């Protein structure tokens, strides 16, 4: 499970092996050739990741200081323009809005996904018939392409003919809620849909974490006369903490950059009410063809993710112990 462990055991063996073959004509050359072959296994992946993850990071920083216009793709010219892109983006009121929406969206989604996911994980930790089947079927929403889920929900949430409003209408409450069409409701609706998408993932990971907790601990707590809620709070939650950290950080990193779902549900509208940093990057670059401005927003997004990556790596380290 840890990263350092395997490397240390193997490196202890490899040189010993190389030196105990006296029959070889030139041990130095053989060892070098051996290393080269070994690097041949790893090199393609390293090159690929440098091209598809490392290079875009660097390129985005450079691009954020360049002036891209629709003409750029004919002339190939994108002259450097100092900090113009940065000041333009930061002065635009839309950026502040998008940043705020991103934070609200991420916090709301994580809170909902996590709480419901945890409740379901606890529920499915009971033993009852068909538990396994139900638990695996619940994964289905997570496996459907996100853009497709978004489109299905767009139909469900339709103000006049969507099934949610007709259902609410029969109950006599809010049968004409403009879920996706009013600027006040749209962000909330998008969050609710994203909670639905994230529940299975949270549930599965937290369920796995719950199973790792030794049963004796619960039995001991029960013998001490602790109530179920007390046991959950004082025994289960502390034991679950590493898994909770991982689930929240992974959830954060996939939520903060969201694009598919919002494009499918609202295209960032109405009146930019669901515009986030992800959609704003897309709009700047691929709709306005101002890749410089897109790169600025993208860099802000990276910065936010980087802060949380630190948490993630910490979580990974504790996890490995």
């Amino acid at each position, binding site marked *: 499970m840890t990263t350092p462990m395997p490397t240390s055991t193997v490196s202890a063996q*490899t040189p010993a092996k190389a030196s105990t073959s006296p029959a070889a004509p030139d041990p130095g050359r053989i060892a070098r050739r051996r290393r080269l072959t070994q690097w041949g296994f790893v090199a393609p992946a390293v090159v690929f990741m440098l091209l598809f993850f490392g290079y875009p990071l660097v390129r985005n920083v450079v691009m954020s200081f360049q002036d891209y216009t629709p003409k750029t793709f004919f002339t190939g010219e994108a002259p450097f323009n100092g900090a113009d892109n940065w000041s333009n983006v930061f002065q635009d009121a839309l950026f502040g809005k998008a940043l705020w929406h991103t934070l609200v969206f991420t916090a709301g989604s994580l809170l909902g996904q996590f709480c419901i996911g945890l409740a379901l994980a606890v529920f499915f930790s009971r033993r009852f018939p068909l538990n396994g089947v139900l638990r695996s079927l619940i994964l289905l929403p997570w496996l459907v392409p996100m853009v497709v889920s978004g489109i299905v929900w767009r139909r469900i949430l339709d103000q006049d003919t969507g099934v949610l409003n007709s259902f609410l209408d029969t109950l006599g409450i809010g049968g004409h809620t403009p879920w996706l069409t009013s600027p006040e409701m749209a962000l909330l609706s998008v969050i609710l849909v994203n909670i639905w998408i994230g529940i299975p993932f949270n549930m599965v990971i937290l369920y796995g974490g719950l199973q790792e907790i030794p049963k004796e601990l619960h039995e001991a707590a029960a013998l001490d006369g602790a109530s179920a809620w007390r046991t959950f709070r004082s025994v289960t939650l502390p034991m679950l903490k590493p898994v909770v950290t991982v689930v929240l950080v992974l959830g954060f990193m996939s939520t903060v950059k969201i694009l598919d779902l919002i494009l499918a549900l609202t295209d960032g509208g109405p009146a930019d009410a669901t515009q986030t940093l992800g959609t704003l990057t897309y709009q700047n670059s691929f709709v306005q063809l101002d890749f410089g401005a897109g790169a600025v927003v993208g860099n802000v997004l990276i910065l936010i*993710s980087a802060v949380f990556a630190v948490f993630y790596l910490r979580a990974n380290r504790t996890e490995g112990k």
Partner: protein
Amino acid sequence: MASHTPTASRRRWGSTVAGVLILCVMLFPLYWMLNTALQPDSGLLQVDPVPGSLDLSGFSKAISDQGGHLVTSLAVSLGAVAICLAISAPAAYGLARFGLRGSRTIVFGTLITQMVPGIVIANALYNSYVDLGLVNSYFGLMLADASLGIPFSIVLMRSFMVSIPGEVIEAAQIDGAGPVRTFVRVVLPMSRNSLITSGLFAFLFSWSDFMFALTLNTTDDVKPITLGIYQYIGAHVGDWGSVMAASVLSAVPAAILLVLAQKYIAAGITGGSVK
């Protein structure tokens, strides 16, 4: 081993009923997708809770309009899986076993890639793709989609390959097998399960990809189903029946894999995230 009293058994079945209700709520949107797809005439009207008759015209329209995009998705995803496994399986082995200097940094870097937002990658990639002539090409999209699965696969397979007993690999080496032969003949067959899990997830990631399809294509030449459906609702606002039918078709691979490969999916979700 206490005997099951009727009340205990009733309570257990009570939990099952609650579980089924939870499942119904969670899967309702997917039911509604199927239900709407079977009522192509409803158009912009309200959809009945259950289809009155079995009207498959929405599906036949979806297949004639979107069938090609399904094939594109399949081709791109299979290509992405091939690239992903070809690159990540040897790397996972190398990182697990060779004790190369820098291995830790590489594993660290692999974990870090998860924080790079896709739209940032697309932003830079589009410009390079224009220069390299990879925009609107199958190969370009396969490469980009492979990037969705590679870090995950390396981490997952590596954590498995670390656990292969050293004696097995040494035995192969004593028999005279070089590292490549050992890898192909011994390590890969032993890692079958983690290879399947990685491949499955690489397929699902690529099949679900919308962002690279949207940003790295400017024409209709290479249009996967996700992009096809998205553009379709823009153009045919009233035709929800066939949009939903196409959506159902796009969800079929996920459903099939969930049924056929359940244990690999479960292994992937926990293994890929907690490691």
